[in-house]
């Protein structure tokens, strides 16, 4: 195929990403006009054709055109601003002249405008994500309708008698994609597939299974590529680079609650499966996921939805017309009675983000987020109680798991700019997090009689957990790029720094009185993580690149265990009556007393090489082989217990192939296939009796994942699959897990998403009616459970149907469309919810958390003042 690197790339460059526009601003810049200026929007673009004359040399070239668009939206003039050579200039100009636009507007009237459109030419047809200019790419296989952002202050050179508005493009600097293990999923039209939470968007990448045993405000438990990533412990979550994982959370170190993200504000999700990019930091064991926020629909959108189980959702979104997608504000209020006992929830979220040029060649993005939720938790149901009719499928064993809360207030500021051949980025963030969680996994089992305690019956195992965290940090990098050996090369150096002050307390609460009677944990910690990395993209040949480098992380722990002494060694008669039954009794040997405080501090670092060899692309195919080491810090409680190295390392390997092809203008097809193997030095296994994950032995995952997506004029279809086997090490300090399967992780996960959209063949009041149909399907194979047991399969469908007319949109969505009764989480462990039983149960039994039944939501929305 002689076609060039897709002009799509140029389109992407031109309309979505980086700061190139700022680079073009000159000294003639003027203050913004008073009248509202709307940018031109691309209606149709035409790919440029790679000049046949250049094929022999297989050279790359960059061309920047200045394109003048008349008031009718047609290209009236094309000038070469930066030449890539005569043939390349001509190819770019030929393509650009065929583009059509919604013309720019000033004061509501169409006006001529001028934009810059950079083209990058590479010899073979590559996947789109590696085409884009690293300065400002939007590496996506399915680009959204572009929004051009006017600076509204550039000089307006005369062109005959017409005024021209020069348009600046604001965007973001992105890391160059790794290859097959990396999935960037622009939601785009797939927004039609119902997604209840931001975490659901992860399913666009292969292998994800999400469960939730802790209520709708509790972080989802994530399973990925054979990892039980728990509530985020093995997956690095960020939102536009700002960390989501909690450091030092006793409930789960790395706990990542993504519910603060309004799903409609997710522009794209970038998932890198495996630790292959030097930019990936703590918790990137199974990989990392970064949410990119953005609002494509401009104007003011108000939406109200009501549906099953008393659910109501009010959503307000605002995207100023004269701003890029990265500038928006959104607020959400959601309430539901829940689909069963003790599943009531309500939440409120507000996110505001402002993105604008800063200086001549930079852009600033400021984000403010506030989120609060209150929710109840039904917890687990024992299978035997359900079968005996003692507890309903959607019931609860303990009705006291209520009053759970979580909040997040975060602020971040990100500067991105370009100075000659160096791009820089600097981000600062501050986060305040709280959560309170009440869970009862074991009923009445753990409150054993201690000699020092007054005689008592089992008082119940309800956990009342509280966590506070303040995080301050930043990240930044400088990236040089230039030509060496006639090829474009890149070198990036960057850092990540984060300091957290945290407090975790966990009490046991007596059934009936709801009064705390014992303290399980009380940790105050100061944690620091400093990472430094080098990342290179060395292009040895036009079809051979080495990407990667090295990262070093240092972790610092300063932990105060305020409940360090939980039993006495040699009790004597001097124990005061008031101290009987007190948690953390401080008596030591021979009646001596000590305060129950123990301070532990440790620090350690690790160096992690990461690299990928990229071969191709050849006829749309690109091969990649990746290897890298990752790291996960441990929970402060282990530091308090004297663990020497406060982190766990992971080694990962991937071998994959990517494919991208445009079938004319009709269909864009992308696909990936990837084999992987990952070894974790010390894995975590969920321990229901503690209500959290605890350290186990090393483990290895081996498997395959694949994904494909096809985008056409009226459809967007994506599918992915993962097959994996996860086993514990069979040698070394592996007991009692040696050679056994890692429990809970599914060995087969299939997911499909499809959206169909078109204007209906009739009009209403002379306005078209647009119909959208979304469908998603998930299949999760049997998951191994402890004691050689296996779970049921999960097979679910979600669907929606929407109609849009003028400013109005109506959407009817259904999750679990066929009302399948399924067990979302299944566990085998001892529990004893005594009130239902004639005697305690001490041997392992099956328990489960119920999956949601069919949930229908009807949403009406209107958008005014939009472009």
């Amino acid at each position: 195929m002689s076609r060039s690197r897709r002009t799509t790339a140029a389109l992407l460059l031109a309309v979505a990403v980086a700061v190139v526009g700022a680079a073009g601003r000159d000294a003639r810049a003027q203050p913004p006009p008073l009248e509202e200026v709307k940018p031109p929007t691309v209606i149709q673009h035409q790919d440029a054709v790679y000049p046949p004359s250049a094929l022999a040399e297989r050279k790359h070239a960059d061309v920047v055109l200045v394109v003048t668009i008349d008031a009718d939206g047609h290209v009236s003039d094309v000038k070469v601003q930066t030449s890539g050579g005569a043939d390349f200039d001509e190819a770019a100009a030929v393509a650009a002249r065929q583009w059509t636009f919604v013309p720019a507007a000033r004061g509501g009237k169409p006006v001529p405008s001028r934009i810059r459109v950079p083209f990058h030419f590479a010899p073979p047809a590559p996947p789109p994500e590696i085409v884009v200019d690293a300065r400002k790419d939007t590496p996506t296989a399915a680009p959204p309708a572009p929004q051009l952002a006017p600076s509204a202050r550039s000089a307006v050179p005369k062109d005959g008698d017409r005024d021209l508005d020069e348009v600046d493009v604001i965007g973001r600097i992105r890391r160059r994609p790794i290859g097959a293990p990396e999935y960037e999923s622009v939601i785009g039209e797939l927004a039609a597939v119902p997604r209840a939470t931001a975490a659901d968007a992860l399913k666009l990448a292969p292998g994800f299974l999400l469960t939730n045993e802790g209520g709708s405000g509790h972080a989802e438990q994530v399973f990925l590529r054979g990892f039980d990533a728990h509530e985020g412990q093995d997956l690095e979550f960020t939102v536009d680079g700002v960390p989501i994982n909690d450091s030092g959370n006793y409930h789960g170190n790395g706990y990542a609650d993504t519910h603060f993200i309004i799903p409609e504000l997710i522009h794209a999700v970038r998932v890198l499966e495996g630790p292959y990019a030097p930019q990936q930091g703590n918790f990137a064991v199974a990989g990392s996921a970064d949410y990119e926020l953005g609002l494509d629909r401009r104007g003011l959108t108000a939406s109200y939805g009501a549906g099953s189980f008393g659910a109501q959702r009010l959503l307000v979104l605002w995207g100023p017309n004269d701003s890029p997608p990265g500038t928006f504000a959104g607020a959400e209020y959601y309430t539901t009675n829940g689909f069963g006992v003790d599943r009531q929830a309500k939440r409120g979220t507000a996110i505001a983000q402002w993105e604008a040029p800063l200086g001549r060649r930079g852009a600033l993005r400021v984000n403010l987020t506030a989120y609060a939720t209150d929710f109840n938790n039904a917890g687990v149901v024992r299978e035997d109680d359900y079968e005996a009719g003692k507890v309903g499928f959607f019931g609860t064993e303990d009705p006291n798991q209520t009053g759970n809360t979580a909040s997040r207030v975060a602020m971040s500021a990100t500067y991105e700019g370009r100075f000659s051949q160096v791009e820089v980025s600097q981000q600062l963030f501050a986060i305040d997090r709280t959560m309170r969680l009440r869970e009862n996994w074991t009923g009445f089992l753990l409150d054993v009689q201690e000699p020092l305690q007054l005689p008592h019956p089992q008082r119940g195992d309800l956990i009342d957990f509280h966590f506070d965290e303040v995080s301050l940090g930043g990240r930044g990098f400088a990236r040089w790029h230039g030509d060496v050996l006639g090829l474009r090369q890149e070198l990036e150096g960057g850092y990540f720094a984060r300091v957290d002050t945290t407090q975790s307390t966990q009490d046991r609460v007596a059934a009936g009185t709801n009064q705390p009677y014992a303290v399980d944990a009380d940790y105050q910690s100061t944690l620091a993580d400093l990472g430094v990395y080098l990342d290179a993209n060395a292009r040895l040949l036009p079809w051979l690149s080495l990407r990667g480098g090295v990262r070093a992380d240092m972790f610092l722990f300063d932990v105060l265990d305020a409940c360090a002494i939980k039993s006495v060694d040699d009790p004597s008669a001097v124990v005061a009556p008031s101290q009987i039954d007190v948690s953390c009794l401080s008596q030591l040997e021979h009646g001596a007393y000590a305060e129950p405080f123990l301070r532990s501090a440790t620090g350690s670092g690790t160096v992690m090489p990461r690299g990928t060899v990229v071969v191709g692309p050849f006829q749309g195919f690109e091969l990649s082989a990746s290897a890298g080491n990752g790291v996960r810090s441990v929970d402060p409680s282990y530091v308090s217990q004297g663990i020497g190295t406060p982190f766990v390392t992971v080694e990962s390997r991937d071998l994959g192939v990517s494919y991208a092809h445009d079938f004319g203008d009709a269909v864009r097809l992308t696909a990936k296939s990837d084999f992987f193997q990952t070894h974790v030095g010390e894995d975590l296994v969920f321990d229901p009796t503690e209500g959290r994950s605890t350290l186990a032995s090393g483990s290895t995952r081996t498997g395959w994942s694949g994904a494909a997506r096809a985008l056409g004029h009226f459809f967007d279809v994506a599918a992915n699959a993962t097959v994996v086997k996860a086993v514990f090490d069979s040698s070394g300090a592996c007991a009692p897990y040696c050679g056994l399967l890692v429990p809970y992780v599914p060995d087969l996960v299939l997911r499909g998403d499809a959206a169909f959209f078109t204007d209906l063949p009739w009009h209403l009041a002379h306005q078209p009616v647009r119909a959208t149909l979304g469908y998603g399907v998930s299949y999760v194979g049997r998951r191994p459970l402890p004691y050689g047991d296996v779970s049921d399969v999960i097979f679910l469908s979600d669907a929606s149907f929407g109609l849009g007319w003028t400013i109005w949109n109506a959407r009817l969505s259904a999750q679990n469309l066929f009302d399948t009764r399924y067990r979302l989480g299944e566990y085998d462990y001892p529990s004893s919810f005594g009130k239902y039983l004639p005697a305690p149960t001490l041997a392992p039994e099956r328990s489960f958390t119920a999956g949601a039944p069919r949930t229908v939501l009807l949403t009406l929305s209107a958008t005014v003042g939009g472009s």
Partner: protein
Amino acid sequence: MRSLGTVLAFALACPAFSCNGTTGDHLVSFSAYAAGAPGAGDPFTAGNYTIQLTAARMHIGAVYFDEAPPGGSGFDGPVCIASGVFAAQVPGPVDVDLLSPTPQQFAVYGTGTADTALSWQVWLYDGDVDEADFDPVVQVEGTATDAGGTVTAFGAIVTINPGNRSKGSPDPTQPGLDPLCKARIVQVPTDTTFFDGGVLTVTVDPRVWFTQQEEPFDFAPGQLPSIADPNCNPDPDVFTNPSSYALAPDVPAPSDQTCGGSSQPCCAGDVCLGALTCAEGVCGPSVCIPNSSFLPGTVPGSTAGLDLYSEVVSAAAFTVTYGPQSP
């Protein structure tokens, strides 16, 4: 770390041949029964007496099988629910007729894992093992015949509750040292490996309660309280009375007599069959083995009551078998 070639080969084979493996072990379920020992209804000798039990009942609340040996998992301390790993359980009750060798099914099936238990626990109570409760754990009725042919009808009721079994901690700094639950759990050694679909049978031999006594019970007149004596049951929270000791067999009166066997109605002054006496309108035993551990030593039967309780909660009477389902 295996090579990428291995990764490739495995990943290709995995979907084709399914990824096998196990997390280890597996869950099991089984039927559970309790029964009396064969011959328990036959006369036997205990000291100077030939004893014929006419009724013997035990309430078993649950049984649990611990992978730790006796005394392991901290069970020899004050902990009643040990922190160890339990291989199997039958967490439901059975009221077993100890004179019948016919298996009597527990209220629930047994469950567990395919593991070996080295000790097992008989919970002589169901519900919260620490809660106060006054229901009988053991009820016994029988006759004791001395060498001269004198027959004494006796009865016994054993309860385990704070009033009669919880001695309290000897150390005030450790008030939880001797919890009531310890008095209700009998730990027995075993070596039982569980598999799915088996049958568990718990056998209790009530004769042991009489034959294992270091000082055999003395049924001579005056050595045990009369059935109507408050010392039979000094615990005010235990609602038993003389008629409660009349259990079985329910023998109708012969045509030439006005009163029959145990638990048959009678009127004051009537003569019941055998050595039974008429009290509170029913025929029943004439003397009791007291239901208390704390009777003063001067009270008749005070030692007998303590000795009977000690044997009831000893391991000697209990055996367990686990085998395949009978065809």
